[in-house]
């Protein structure tokens, strides 16, 4: 016998997982100290778990951070699987199918995340560059004045700062 398997997308970034769960209509809810007692689950819940609107014999299926990955905890036989969606329009799908959907949505969210972080990094580097230029300018002006130069500041055709220092000897 041979087999081909595909593992689920590793869900490692909580923000992306929440976004993906929203996208597939799983209505994610983060368990906090304040709502921990309001949700019952036979296996128990802990602060930090992410509930979905999917339920089974044990209660709401939920993601828990195990090591560096968020893992879906559910009844292996999916006994009494159902959706507790208030709109009740969505039908329960098997866990494998659900994870595939979440995986696809996670990938989309992750690509957006990469684009956003790249933009943030670009902005950060640009701010650093401007600060470096400004520090160089201020240092040069201060030192020139301390050495008796008069300083005239202009900008050249490339938009670069130009300092013309003159002194009589």
């Amino acid at each position, binding site marked *: 016998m041979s087999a081909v398997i595909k593992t689920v997308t590793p869900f490692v970034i909580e923000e992306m997982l929440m976004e993906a769960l929203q996208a597939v209509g799983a209505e994610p809810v983060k368990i906090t100290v304040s709502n921990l007692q309001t949700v019952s689950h036979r296996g128990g819940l802990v602060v930090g778990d992410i509930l979905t609107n999917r339920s089974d014999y044990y209660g709401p299926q939920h993601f828990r951070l195990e090591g560096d990955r968020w893992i879906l905890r559910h009844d292996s036989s999916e006994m009494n699987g159902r959706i507790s969606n208030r709109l009740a329009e969505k039908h329960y799908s098997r866990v494998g199918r659900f994870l595939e959907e979440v995986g696809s949505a996670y990938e989309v969210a992750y690509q957006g995340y990469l684009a956003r972080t790249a933009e943030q990094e670009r902005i950060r580097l640009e701010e650093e560059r401007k600060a470096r230029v400004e520090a160089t300018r201020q240092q040069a002006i201060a030192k020139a004045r301390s050495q008796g130069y008069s300083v005239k500041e202009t900008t050249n055709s490339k938009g670069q700062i130009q300092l013309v220092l003159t002194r009589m*000897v």
Partner: protein
Amino acid sequence: MPEQKITLTINDDGAITAKTSGFKGESCLEALDELLNLEGVVSNVKKTDEYHQEQTQHTNRVQSLKGKS
């Protein structure tokens, strides 16, 4: 009274290009060193013909002073 002049251009990455005039001989480099602390940061020095002429204006270019911030 002779005038000493240094033109500093600050590049987009914070590097400096410096051009001097009115200095005699090596004094232009000394003046730049006093002003910019050149040790270990100069990537290129181009001495002009004037640099070698005594009692005349000297022009020196010090380019791309990387790391001067």
